[in-house]
């Protein structure tokens, strides 16, 4: 059987994608930080905004009598305090009243002068104009106190910006959502990885002492030093050591499968051959007459090809076998029936036995109706469930009408043929 060409992870591509991602992250974070800082600065504007007197305020305090215009003392004092000056121009551009007007300024202004100063400065004095009937009040602030710039935009552009605004908000929202998800996933992944590493570490530490225990127990069983009874006890120790070995392997596999960290090593193979291989192994190991296996493989199903992790599925099948053998001890000989059928795009494997069947509660847990329940005593079968689900397959457990239990697995079959 040929293994499919399974490409190794292109490590360079991963590094590249990781650095692109990191770059995008940093860029985005910098941009966000800048925007925040800008916003804070904008808030500080209030603190810097000068309380300069406006033309309107001047006009309110400016009264006209026979001698001409008179500004209230209060306003005069205020203007003086802020270093401001003010003047009133008539329709011709002539200065008809002024207060603290700098000497360098003219007494009469042309239309072009007025147009210029309304936009920019008057002899470097920042000035603010306000029109009253045919007069213009000009209020100036000290030189280098204000920065003036004339801003104008096309209306169409403003409309476009208004339009874009919603999309920008939406985009920002989505972007934040995506980043949040990515960060959370990374974080939980690293936590998962740490947990798996921890479990792997523990099982690693248990294995060596267990090897010593198993080794000595085995030596005692085969040796001639002990009495028959003691040898039997040593055999129990050996058996329990082997059970612990299975448990450790299951624990490791469960923790990896649960966090979907277990990378599936997929290859193309005939499930029929796999089923026969596992069954033959168990039949070889079983004592004469304790196990009977019925194989029911469709002619068509012989040709079925699966693209899956063969080792993992073998493991799952072995667990099913172990489970059947364990729960048929009371009944004596176990009969296991394995059938393989092809159904359009799927292949169906049914594993059934004549054992005691599953309890109602067990079925609930196995069939996922009570997911929250801890999977302690269904560890062996838990691996079966997870292995099938990891392949995107469906699994159902149940009890047969005539007693015994069954486990039905459905996998999507591969449409490729195995070529040698």
């Amino acid at each position, binding site marked *: 059987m040929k293994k499919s060409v399974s490409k190794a992870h292109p490590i360079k591509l991963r590094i590249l994608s990781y650095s692109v991602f990191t770059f995008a992250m940093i860029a985005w974070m910098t941009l966000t930080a800048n925007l925040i800082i800008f916003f804070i600065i904008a808030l500080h504007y209030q603190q810097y905004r000068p309380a300069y007197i406006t033309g309107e305020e001047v006009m309110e305090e400016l009264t006209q009598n026979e001698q001409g215009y008179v500004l209230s003392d209060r306003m005069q004092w205020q203007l003086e305090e802020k270093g401001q000056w003010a003047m009133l121009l008539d329709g011709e551009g002539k200065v008809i009243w002024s207060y603290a007007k700098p000497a360098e300024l003219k007494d009469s202004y042309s239309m072009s002068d007025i147009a210029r100063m309304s936009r920019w400065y008057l002899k470097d004095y920042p000035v603010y104009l306000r029109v009253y009937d045919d007069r213009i009040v000009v209020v100036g602030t000290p030189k280098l106190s204000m920065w003036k710039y004339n801003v104008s935009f096309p209306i169409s552009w403003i409309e476009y910006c208004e339009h874009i605004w919603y999309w920008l908000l939406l985009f920002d929202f989505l972007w934040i959502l995506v980043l949040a998800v990515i960060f959370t996933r990374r974080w939980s992944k690293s936590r998962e990885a740490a947990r798996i590493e921890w479990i792997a570490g523990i099982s*690693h530490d248990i*294995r060596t002492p267990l090897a010593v*225990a198993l080794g000595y127990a085995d030596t005692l069983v085969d040796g001639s030093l002990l009495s028959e009874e003691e040898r039997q006890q040593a055999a129990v120790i050996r058996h329990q050591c082997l059970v612990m070995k299975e448990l450790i392997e299951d624990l490791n596999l469960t923790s990896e499968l649960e966090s979907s960290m277990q990378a599936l090593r997929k290859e193309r193979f005939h499930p029929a051959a796999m089923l026969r291989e596992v069954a033959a192994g168990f039949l070889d190991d079983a004592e004469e007459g304790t196990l009977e296996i019925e194989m029911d493989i469709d002619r068509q199903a012989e040709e079925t090809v699966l693209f899956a992790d063969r*080792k993992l599925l073998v493991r799952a099948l072995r667990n099913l076998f172990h489970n059947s053998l364990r729960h048929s001890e009371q009944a004596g000989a176990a009969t296991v029936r394995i059938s393989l059928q092809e159904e359009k795009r799927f292949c169906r494997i049914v594993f059934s036995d004549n054992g005691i069947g599953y309890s109602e509660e067990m079925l609930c847990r196995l069939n996922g109706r009570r997911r929250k329940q801890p999977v302690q005593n269904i560890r062996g079968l838990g691996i079966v469930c997870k292995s099938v689900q990891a392949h995107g397959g469906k699994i159902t457990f149940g009890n047969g009408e005539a007693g015994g239990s069954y486990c039905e697995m459905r996998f999507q079959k591969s449409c490729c043929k195995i070529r040698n």
Partner: protein
Amino acid sequence: MNLYEYRIMIVDDEPELRRMVAGFLKKEGFVQVVTAGSCQEARTVFEREHPHLILMDVMLPDGDGFSLLRKLHEKSEVPVIFLSARDEDENRLVGLGLGADDYVTKPFLPRELILRILAVLKRVYRVRDGAEDQRVIALGDCRIDLRSGVVSRQNVRTETEEIQPPAEVTLTAKEYAILEKLAANRGQIVTIDALCEAVWKDGNYGYENTLIVHIRRLREKIEQDASHPRHLLTVRGLGYKLV
């Protein structure tokens, strides 16, 4: 040299495990067993003792077994069996890619380890320890010499003394391949797929009918009564077994 005369080095940081493995190796009959607890010690012992096979833990206090293997392989092509406390495939692949000869996951049964040691020693040093005998299969009154592919029958005597099959028949290439595969796994079931793989180098099921024909012919040659085989048994739905 006898298989049990080969020198075996055990490298593991757990002294109790070294003692246990050395103990059952000696009990099994291996006379020369040396041990080391670290990479450094392993290199010194290696220089001094020149072992023929190394049992090595993957994780050692002062380095990992893989780099130690690389270093040792610079000097000699000594076969290595890894003993690992981790059953991750990655380690296994790296180990085998480096030229490790086998891999045993802890905990292991002593018998299992000994079988693997013997298999590696036989393969690497091409020891014909009783191998000649294994090339001749005895099935009841029938002897099959796998070297020549000849089946010879002794005392073929039917009660009515009718037509007697020839005393010696030769096997065809396919029959030979089937028998060889079955003999290699004597007492165990060989699946149809494994047989097809062995004979046609193809695990495809399309050969099943042809296989049945070949088995039938093979039985005619090796069984006294091909319809009631006593040695080449059919395991329904799974495959065949040579007992």
